[in-house]
């Protein structure tokens, strides 16, 4: 028989664990492989009452080979030979900038007390993406909420909320480190109760533009990500009067995990005097729709001269009525390259797939949709019989559609016209209620 007596001495606390190898991280040298473009032009902005003012249009792309966006987070700085803002507080009215993540962090931690104008200009969420400025920057939820949670936010650029949409199935939700469709409400810097105002004297109606079917592929097809609302049209018009001259865009982004190193890319564009002297004509009257009984629509529109391509956007009630009012509206777009008065056709079944059978839903709702919803829901459920649609139109004198996704996979698509500008004219957006048509 053996008796054993022992003591164990664990010395893990006074040693350093042997380091296992973490996988290598392959970082792309974005500044070396990406291409930043900037184009500017005039924006003839229709206002309620048939008037219009000429603002500035900005088109920018930052893409990597293959055409995708170069970064998921960057901070733009736009410098112009004109005042963007009529009521600046701290900063230069000739510049519009975003707030760096480090600045946002300093504000959140209290180490910086001065609230920069950038916070409500491009803010934290607006960056330059593959086609235009968009509110799609990734942000830290805790920092973002700490800073913006105490501000009165606006719906235009500085107040862009970081939210993802569960469309077509539900409402929006906060989306900080998530991809999101967040086009800007245009034109930006329309005078508002909060934030900054441009130099317009009038107050145009703002709207956001998402390219949808039939001009673009359906963003709500069966295998599309649910966050995706539509393809960007790439332009950003400012409610600020432009002048001829050189415009400069700088895009900064970090190249390290701790924001210790940065890359800056720069592009310039010249707005010719000829463009300022001869902006595109007013897009008026606004397009009108005649909804047909089968759920299609005829669009009556007059495209102004000088426009080489125009997009009529319709944002309409989703027709899977069993889940209304929680389903978001759908975006539809018609492209025309003809000027003058014309009647365009919006087909009847452009809606996202019916989740119960996979068939496309109606573009505009019918009483047949009402009947289907009643059959799916318990007796006594309320099914809507009216909906709404918003119609907007924009004309371009440069190949805006060709430069857009998914048509373009170029690292540097053409975004100017022959004289070097990128001009747009926008109709006054209309919001209209309608009673569902009688079709099946």
């Amino acid at each position, binding site marked *: 028989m*053996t*008796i*054993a*007596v022992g003591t*164990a*001495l*664990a*010395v*893990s606390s006074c*040693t350093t*664990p*042997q380091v*296992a*190898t*973490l*996988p290598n*991280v*392959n*970082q*792309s040298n974005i500044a070396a492989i990406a291409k930043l473009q900037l184009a500017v032009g005039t924006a003839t902005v229709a206002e309620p009452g048939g008037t219009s003012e000429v603002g500035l249009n900005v088109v920018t792309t930052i893409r990597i080979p293959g*055409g*995708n*966006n*170069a970064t*998921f*987070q960057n901070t733009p700085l736009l410098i112009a030979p004109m005042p963007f803002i009529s009521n600046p507080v701290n900063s230069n009215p000739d510049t519009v900038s975003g707030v760096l993540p480090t600045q946002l*962090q300093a504000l*959140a931690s209290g180490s910086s007390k001065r609230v920069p104008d950038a916070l409500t200009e491009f803010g934290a969420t607006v960056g330059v993406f*593959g086609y235009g400025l*968009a509110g*799609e920057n*990734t942000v*830290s*939820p*805790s*920092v973002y909420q700490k800073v913006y949670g105490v501000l009165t936010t606006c719906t235009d650029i500085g107040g862009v909320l970081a939210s*993802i949409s*569960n469309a077509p*199935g539900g409402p929006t939700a906060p*989306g*900080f*480190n*998530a*991809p999101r469709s967040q086009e800007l409400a245009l034109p930006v810097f329309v005078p508002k109760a909060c934030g900054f105002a441009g130099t317009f004297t009038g107050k145009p109606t703002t709207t956001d533009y998402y390219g949808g079917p039939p001009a673009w592929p359906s963003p709500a097809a069966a*295998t*599309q*990500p*649910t*966050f995706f609302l539509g*393809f960007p049209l790439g332009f950003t018009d400012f409610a600020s009067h432009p002048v001829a001259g050189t415009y400069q865009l700088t895009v900064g*982004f*970090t*190249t*390290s*995990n*701790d*924001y210790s190193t940065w890359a800056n890319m720069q592009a310039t564009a010249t707005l010719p005097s000829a463009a300022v002297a001869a902006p595109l004509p007013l897009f008026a009257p606004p397009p009108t729709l005649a909804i047909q009984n089968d759920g299609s629509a005829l669009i009556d529109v007059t495209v102004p001269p000088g426009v080489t391509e125009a997009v009529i956007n319709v944002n309409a009630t989703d027709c899977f009525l069993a889940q209304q009012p929680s389903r978001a509206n759908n975006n539809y777009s018609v492209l025309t390259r003809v000027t003058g008065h014309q009647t365009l056709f919006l087909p009847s079944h452009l809606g996202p797939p019916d*989740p*119960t059978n996979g068939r496309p839903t109606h573009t505009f709702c019918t009483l047949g949709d009402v009947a289907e919803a009643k059959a799916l829901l318990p007796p006594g459920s309320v099914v809507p019989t009216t909906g709404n649609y918003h119609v907007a139109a924009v004309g371009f004198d440069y190949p805006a559609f060709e430069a857009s*996704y998914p048509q373009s996979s170029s690292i540097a698509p053409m975004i100017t016209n022959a004289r070097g500008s990128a001009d747009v004219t926008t109709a006054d957006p209309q919001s209209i209620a309608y009673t569902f048509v009688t079709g099946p």
Partner: protein
Amino acid sequence: MQNSPAVTGLRHQTVFEPHLGFAYKMDANDVIRANYGYTLAIPLPTFLGADINRKLFSAYQNIPSFDNLTGKPAMYCGPGQPFYNVITATEQFGGTQRCANYADQLYWLERNYRFGLQGQINYPLQGATFSNYDLSYAHEFPSGAAFKVTPFYRRGYNIVETTRTLQGVDVVTGAALYSPEVYSNLGFQEATGVEMDVTSPPRLTGLSGQFTATYINQFGNDPPGNFLPTASLLLGNVYHSPEIAPFQSTLALTYKNQKFPLTYNPIFSFISGYPYGTGVYQAITYHGTPVYVPITDALYNSSQSALLVPAWVNPQNPGSIFSPNVPGTQGTDGYYSGPGTLHSSPQALMDLTIQYVPPNFKRTTYGMFIRNLFSNAADIPVQNLARDCQPVSAGVCASLPGSSSSFLPPTVGHPLGVGNPYGAYIVYPNQAPINVTLYAQVGL
């Protein structure tokens, strides 16, 4: 189908298990052996559990069924199948037939919760079977040292696998939400390898020892990670077994000194490393169908979806679920990689025992045993779901002190690990560190 029998988990099984062995003694020092065996591995009783007895609900047979969401008789009885729930706007799995009464309703509620997804595969289960082949050659040297080399092959059939499906991600915590477990016999296992064993005869003084080495190339259904997706099994995806290092060896030495009665017994181990990594492509269930697709942030509606996935889509042109447009990945796994295509670093370990037996009191032994002398506590890298960062570009996810990827401030702090807390992978010091045991043994 209203009166279909309860789920049968396992059935009685009879299998003939032949074992054949062959040995040929070539001469006094050389032997060749060959073996074949066929075995049955009976599933554990926990698989599938007990049957659900309808009699348990018989007290409710005279009560009409009722769905409190619709106010009508419940319509979710019958075997489970995928369907779209209009009211909750979710894809669900369950019965679609009218329930005969409340007892029927309760029975199918429990059965489809427990076994609903099971209907996607097959049951009852049967035992897995294995065919094993090995051939060895052994040789003894005149000194008494010997070696043996054994190539082997093993093939498993009808392997019982436990799978789950990732059903979503908690939008607040980022925690994965899994389905109930599903069991099936769809598993596959195959291993080839060779073992080597070299021994020297024990000596009263001087050096002696044993060396073993194993090379094994084993494939199975389990990807690295904490669960086997049902979709992966249904697609028949096969991976290098993540828990088995392809090459392992051990050298155990003993050194005894006659003049000073100390015995040194070092044991060196070498492990070539393990396959790990989530990969960019993974098997998922999409609208009830198993698919092998790039895992992108477009798959999840979560405020932190970019941190849960290896690849990030173009928000302005995301492409489809099956063919996403990916401007950047987290930079660790190759774009076309699947689970397990990374390989952890080799590990060298050493244990040491030193014993002293006093010459004039040999019934007593004093000793010291040091386990893990190099204090190699680092585990295999795992996906870092706790990282606080924001995707910036391909391979760059950036963070600042005090920022958090959650809605709340980072009060808990970053995980105690080795390496960058913002990286896609992290190494935890999970292994037992150096441990020293002093002992004395007395023979009575």
